[in-house]
């Protein structure tokens, strides 16, 4: 029984007509989620700037408001006041639709993210599959933006985006199947509840690594940020965007970071569960933690090259994900649920062996083409 269901039930007992007691709570919940997401995104932008400044031994924005907390607001106002430029070579309609196509699916992910016990908009029985399906739509938006801009840099970015997103989706999905095998369900709430003694990050460390790296690639974060590689293709697909349309991409970038941080929290860090504090606080703390790691990686690592990126997906992550899946399937068959800690130790061993093995037999590099 989610909070939404309780609200609807309450209105029903008050004698509201059917269309009203069904739709009013839903609209209220959607508004709450959109406002909450946008405010957390603002905090994320501030947090990334401050944190990355710390990694780079500088201060970062600290003038506008306490500790520079209002700097993202100033940025947002600045972006909104910018002129909206559409290039002459652009396909005007697609150029207009593309930012919306990127941004809306990202908001839709939050429909199935459980923020607290019962605080979930729709507890779909295929929740995690829904996340994967919906987040793939953003790729189309990115390619639309890249193609419609009529710019050669954004064209390169668009071609890269399809290759990257499609490749990384496969290991990500395979690592999710591992969780589904243990949980016996795709529903987000069930997955959270299944992690009450041991979170899945400990039970399936390799699955977590694959999912985390894959989701870094899905959200175009360093070291997989080839779509907007600023030192190579300047800004990639959003090079020809300004004003509100650019703001959609910008918010979308952090929105997808928030969404994936929430999904990682749900799938591997036992979601809203935790001692003493209320669930929503635990959820936000874990989301911030995941996002901080993402920022840490961004400020530390150089970028992959495009062929290395593909090789990493197909030659490292995909075989590892398949082996991980087989191992977990065997464990689910052989080890009873009460002995989960045995599986945990085994999986840590397997993860270490596999990573060492791959680092020996496979190395990135090469890449020259005879022309």
């Amino acid at each position: 029984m989610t909070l939404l269901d309780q609200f609807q039930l309450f209105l029903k007992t008050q004698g509201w007509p059917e269309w009203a007691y069904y739709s009013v709570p839903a609209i209220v919940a959607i508004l709450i989620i959109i406002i909450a997401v946008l405010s957390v995104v603002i905090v994320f932008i501030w947090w990334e700037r401050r944190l990355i400044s710390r990694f780079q031994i500088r201060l970062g924005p600290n003038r506008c408001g306490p500790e520079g907390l209002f700097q993202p607001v100033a940025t947002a106002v600045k972006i909104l006041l910018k002129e909206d430029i559409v290039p002459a070579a652009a396909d005007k309609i697609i150029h207009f639709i593309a930012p919306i196509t990127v941004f809306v699916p990202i908001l839709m992910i939050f429909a199935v993210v459980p923020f607290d016990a019962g605080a979930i908009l729709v507890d779909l029985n295929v929740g995690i599959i829904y996340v994967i399906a919906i987040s793939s739509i953003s790729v189309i938006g990115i390619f639309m933006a890249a193609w419609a801009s009529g710019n050669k840099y954004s064209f390169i970015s668009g071609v890269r985006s399809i290759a990257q997103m499609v490749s990384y989706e496969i290991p990500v999905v395979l690592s999710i199947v591992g969780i589904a095998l243990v949980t016996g369900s795709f529903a987000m709430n069930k997955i959270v509840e299944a992690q009450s003694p041991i979170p899945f990050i400990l039970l399936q460390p390799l699955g977590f690594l694959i999912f985390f790296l894959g989701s870094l690639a899905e959200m175009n974060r360093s070291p997989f940020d080839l779509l907007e590689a600023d030192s190579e293709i300047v800004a990639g697909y959003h090079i020809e965007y300004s004003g509100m349309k650019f703001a959609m991409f910008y918010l979308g970038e952090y929105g997808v970071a928030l969404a994936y941080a929430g999904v990682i929290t749900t799938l591997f860090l036992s979601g809203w569960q935790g001692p003493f504090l209320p669930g929503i606080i635990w959820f936000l703390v874990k989301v911030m933690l995941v996002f901080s790691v993402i920022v840490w990686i961004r400020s530390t690592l150089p970028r992959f090259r495009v062929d290395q990126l593909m090789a990493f997906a197909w030659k490292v992550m995909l075989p590892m994900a398949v082996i991980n899946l087989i191992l977990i399937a065997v464990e689910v068959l052989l080890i009873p649920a009460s002995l989960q800690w045995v599986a945990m130790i085994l999986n840590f061993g397997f993860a270490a062996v596999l990573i060492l093995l791959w680092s020996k037999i496979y190395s990135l590099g090469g890449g020259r083409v005879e022309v």
Partner: protein
Amino acid sequence: MSMQTEPFYLNIGPQHPSTHGVFRLRVQLDGEVVTDVDPIVGYLHRGIEKLAETRTYTQIIPLTDRLDYLASMTDNVAYCHAVEKLAGIKVPERAEYIRIILSELMRINSHMMAVGFFLNDCGAFFTPVLYMWREREKTLDIFDMVCGQRLLYNYMRVGGVSQDVPEDFLPAVKKFVAEMPRYIGEYNQLIKENEIFLARSKGVGILPRQTAIDIGASGPVLRASGVKWDVRKQDPYSLYERFDFEVPTGDTGDCYDRYWVRIQEMQQSLRIIEQALAQMPDKGPICADVPQFFRPPKGEAYGYIEAPKGNLGFYIVSDGSIAPYRLHIYPPTLINITALKDMVVGWKVADLIIIFGSMDVVLGEIDR
């Protein structure tokens, strides 16, 4: 059935985050693979060689600052060295030591920027640059101390330096030399073994030894290709034969070697500074007796030194007046990037950017 295809041309620059100035590369692409590259220079041309013909010999020194603006001090030294060679002026010993200390600090400074921005081109989002910047600031403080400037120094004069160093100069340099090895260790710890960095730079953009010699490359680019050639050793100018230092070389001439040669050269420069500090006389003239309107004898001279980016030369023709008849600059980076096409063809766009970054170009010097 054959598909009809046409080459994809991409203009990288003149306004692009990774061209280190206003450089333009007209790149022909096949997918992501570079099949041809056509460097187009001249966006920063200021006619320094022509301007020099209407200025006195001292007035040219600020112009040389604007060549390689990340290593102005060595530009000054190179020009003054050429004029001194032309007029046969003997530089006082104390001035020579000041020049050597400042040149080597400049080399460390320039190499830090080169390595930092090279990493930035690899996509490391400014963290290496800002770490390098922290130590670069310290060298800038030292330059600020001696001449009041932080970028364009105008400190050297024909026959010596413009003013004596202040009292706190030597302690500051000693402190820097003592601290710096720890920071270089930190860079190595952060960068050298990074798996992605190795994958991106090892074996990428190889400049073969013979090609490097054929095009007349110099500096770290030449030495990374395995040629042990350094003006400070081969044709010692100033007092360089008094110092004990090594010339680091690479094996293959790839981007990683160019990075690693620069890091090692920073260590060698620190050794030179240490020895120079020990040998430097406490007192003495800091400039030879050169008149304000200095008229060198008729003739011509070519003076060249080992600047951070390579063999920087000035060719001066004097007609006996207060201004040179002709001044020609031999810019190392322009010579080095002539090998760019050989190095990038067959690599990806991303490699083109880092190969170009590993050459350590400064457009002020290329376009003059």
